[in-house]
């Protein structure tokens, strides 16, 4: 039977630990926020990983790690799009464009990056299908999971702490009304500037994350820094109706409501 569940109940780190300890062979499919990842394991080691919505071809991986140029990547896509990764790898090595090491290191970096991205998915469904791997034509590697598990646990702790500080990303940000604060005098990173440029009561933190292409962990990290520096504060997004608060007062008449509160005040004073 396939292992199935929700990342809220069973984290990626726990899954990796299970796969590592039981030396499992199989495919882990994770459906995260707008993306689907497929991660392949052989005897408890990471073998291959890909995000469905991305170009996962060898050419794309080599271009991302700058082992080939953008024009070489385009040329390969035009002329060799039908080649499998294994075939393309052989051609590139024989032609002297890259070494076998270049290919393996690039793929390892990419696979690790995919798994690291999974650490930042707090929500999503997973399924682990045990059995043979169907990754024909792809180049596989063997990466021990122990270091990844340690790294994932660290990130998880960080995310948990940040979630305590910023429990929901559906609220918006506004600059604090502190006289004398001048953003131009504060050293912000490029990423922080990008977030700052979207600070507006109309934008929820989730929208800012989407616009700046940051995941949950990254946006929380940035916003936490800005909050700690006292530059921004969390508010309800402008124009978004607050959740219906339910029936607060037994009467809809404003004067009667006021009288009710005054009666409460009198009573508590007299206690």
């Amino acid at each position, binding site marked *: 039977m396939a292992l199935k569940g929700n990342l809220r109940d069973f984290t990626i780190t726990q899954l990796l630990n299970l796969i590592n300890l039981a030396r499992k062979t199989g495919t882990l499919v994770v459906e995260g926020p707008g993306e689907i990842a497929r991660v392949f394991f052989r005897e408890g080691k990471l073998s291959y990983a890909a995000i469905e919505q991305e170009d996962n071809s060898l050419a794309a991986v080599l271009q991302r790690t700058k082992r080939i140029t953008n024009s070489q990547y385009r040329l390969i896509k035009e002329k060799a799009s039908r080649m499998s990764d294994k075939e393309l790898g052989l051609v590139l090595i024989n032609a002297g464009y890259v070494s076998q090491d270049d290919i393996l290191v690039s793929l390892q970096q990419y696979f690790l990056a995919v798994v690291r991205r999974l650490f930042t998915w707090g929500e999503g469904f997973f399924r682990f299908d045990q059995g043979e791997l169907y990754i024909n034509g792809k180049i596989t590697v063997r990466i021990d999971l122990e270091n990844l598990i340690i790294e994932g646990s660290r990130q998880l702790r960080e995310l948990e702490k940040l*979630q305590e500080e910023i429990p929901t990303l559906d609220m918006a940000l506004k600059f604090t009304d502190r006289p004398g604060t001048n953003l131009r005098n504060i050293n912000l990173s490029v990423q922080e500037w990008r977030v700052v440029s979207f600070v507006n009561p109309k934008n929820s933190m989730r929208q800012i994350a989407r616009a700046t292409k940051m995941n949950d962990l990254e946006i929380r990290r940035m916003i936490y820094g800005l909050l700690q520096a006292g530059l921004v504060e969390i508010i309800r997004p402008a124009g978004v109706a607050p959740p219906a608060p339910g029936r607060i007062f037994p009467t809809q008449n404003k004067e009667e*409501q006021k009288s009710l509160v005054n009666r409460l005040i009198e*009573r508590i004073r007299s206690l």
Partner: protein
Amino acid sequence: MQTVKIVVTGPFNAGKTEFIRSVSEIDVVSTERKISTEAEKIKETTTVAMDFGRITVDEDLVLYLFGTPGQKRFDFMWEILSEGMLGFVVLVDSTRPETFREARSILETFRAYAPTPYVVAANKQDHRDAWDIDDMRLALRIDPKVKLLTCVATNKEKVKSVLLELLYGILAEMEEDRS
């Protein structure tokens, strides 16, 4: 009979049950259980569903005080308890800065549930280790416009003044809405 409610929330061991007990005219209907987690064994029992106190205002009006469970694993109760509240009090243990982050998180969560007025009460201000109220405002990142009040949950007068400040805030907000 008309009823209204105020919610008293805050981290584990902030003093919510004591707070309600100090002003409730009935014995607080409590759902305390023995604590099972070692890390949280700084007191014998904790609230697992809610505390429930009552103040009869007059023949037609009753105020209910609901205390939320402090342990995070019972936070599914928070949204249910916040439904229809007049306002809320966030109680913070002034002697345990390690709970400030959680208090901040609870505050944000309740603000997201409902846009009702609230006050923050710094409890256990009679303890020698209690943090100064101004330092707490900074540590909790509480806006200067939000009322942060000193409190001793076992002292009826102190509890009364926290509730009164919340009610004054509610009244002020109603006036603002009118103008």
